[in-house]
């Protein structure tokens, strides 16, 4: 356990110091706030319930902020190879599974930190603007339920997939997937938009706000993944996103373990 914590802490500290991570989140946050238009959270009526205000913020930031998140994480494992530190890291008394899990947790925490701070700034602004300090509590809850599962899902794939398809190809496929899996309506093409596996958080956002958000449950391809957006569906979506995000790590862990056994 202490080994896992040590790897997580090392990865977190290393990545939290990356200027591009903060720059990208700041740029995307400012861009989204500037171009949100009349439908954006800043223009919601004064009597809008706090849950709806903060889920609207989460959805707005969730449109593109995870793109930057995926771009940052795409070279975390490849970087070790490029800098020639893989052999050194493999010589440490930490198993490949724990090492990978530590990288995942540390990378996820470090990359999610600027997104969380961005949400806190939005929550702080709204609580001052609307005179409701409870909005800050809603900010934390909405971040944990709507945004974090999607970020965990992206982190799992962004860490492992570049090892197989290379970082540039992963980045291209990831951007294409982000459009296909979150925004492309099922009436145009079969897509994952509006399913429990939508990482933008359509189901938890719909449940928390009581408003239909981001095509949640829209009829289409894979109908078993499109239940009515209620509490159970939101919980299923959160669990499914987190567990699916762990799948690539599990496969990579098995491969790394096997490789270590054959090389020893």
């Amino acid at each position, binding site marked *: 356990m202490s080994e896992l914590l040590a790897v997580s802490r090392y990865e977190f500290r290393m990545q939290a110091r990356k200027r591009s*991570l903060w720059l990208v989140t700041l740029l*995307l946050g400012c861009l989204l706030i500037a171009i949100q238009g009349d439908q954006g959270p800043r223009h919601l009526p004064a009597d809008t319930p706090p849950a709806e205000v903060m889920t609207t913020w989460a959805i707005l930031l969730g449109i593109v902020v995870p793109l930057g998140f995926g*771009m940052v994480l795409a070279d975390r494992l490849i970087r070790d190879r490029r800098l020639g530190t893989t052999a050194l890291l493999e010589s440490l008394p930490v198993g490949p599974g724990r090492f990978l899990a530590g990288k995942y947790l540390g990378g996820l925490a470090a990359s999610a930190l600027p997104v969380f701070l961005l949400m806190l700034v939005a929550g702080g602004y709204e609580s001052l603007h609307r005179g409701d300090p409870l909005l800050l509590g809603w900010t934390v809850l909405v971040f944990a339920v709507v945004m974090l599962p999607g970020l965990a899902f992206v982190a799992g794939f962004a860490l492992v997939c570049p090892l197989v398809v290379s*970082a540039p190809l992963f980045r291209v496929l990831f*951007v294409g997937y982000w459009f296909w899996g979150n925004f492309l309506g099922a009436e145009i093409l079969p897509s994952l938009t509006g399913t429990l596996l939508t990482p933008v958080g359509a189901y938890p956002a719909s449940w928390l706000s009581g408003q239909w958000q981001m095509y949640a449950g829209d009829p289409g391809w894979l109908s078993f993944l499109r239940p009515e957006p209620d509490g159970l569906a939101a919980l299923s979506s959160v669990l499914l996103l987190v567990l699916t995000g762990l799948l690539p790590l599990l496969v990579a862990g098995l491969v790394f373990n096997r490789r270590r056994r054959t090389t020893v």
Partner: protein
Amino acid sequence: MKSELIRPIQNRRLPLWRYEARRAGWTLLAAPLTALLVGVALALLAANGGSSRDQVGRMLLAGPEVLLPLTTGMAAVSMVARDGCRELQLSLPTRYAVTLGRRLGTLALAGAVCTLLFSAILGLTGLWAGPGPLASTLVWLPPTLWLAALAVLVGILGRSLVVATTVVAVVWLGELLFAAWFAAEGWARPFFLFTTVRFGVDGDWWTNRLALTASGLLIVVVVALLLRRPHQLLTEEEV
């Protein structure tokens, strides 16, 4: 006598192009082929879902017009950002802008050959839904030039692969998501990258293509000017 002196110099240039193509490796062909094959896969999905011939034709155009700029932009910025011996390149008499131009030239050439072949196949099979043969190049060339040039510009200014790829991703996604806004705003429509697929070849199509080409070339000029001080590209790891 004169021709004998010139020939070795000319011959020396071709191996450099060949070397750059080998250095880029599979990225050269993967960038255009990924775009075109994903476009074909989307068209097959649409056809399977009962879409009309016109919609399937538009989906096939998405490969060269929508996906090719993304793959080429990402490949271009990766080629610029990842140079294992940039400090050595800067010590050579050849200007770094020329080396970089040759590298990006191989990418452009591979993309152009693949897309021209793809367009020709679609034309021969009657599946081409874009403008006539003479204007067909304008379906993919202006948006690809524009986004790839922007990617390289941001890569050079920011010296960060993450920032440059994120900017490319956000611009690409933003143009797709806010297509209606681009259509409504008169001043923004000339800069919409995916006009053929989204709105077809209407009256504004030529204006849009020319505006994209002109602004893309302007970004290339800015890139060339920035590359006059190539030492600014060096990152902390290289200094």
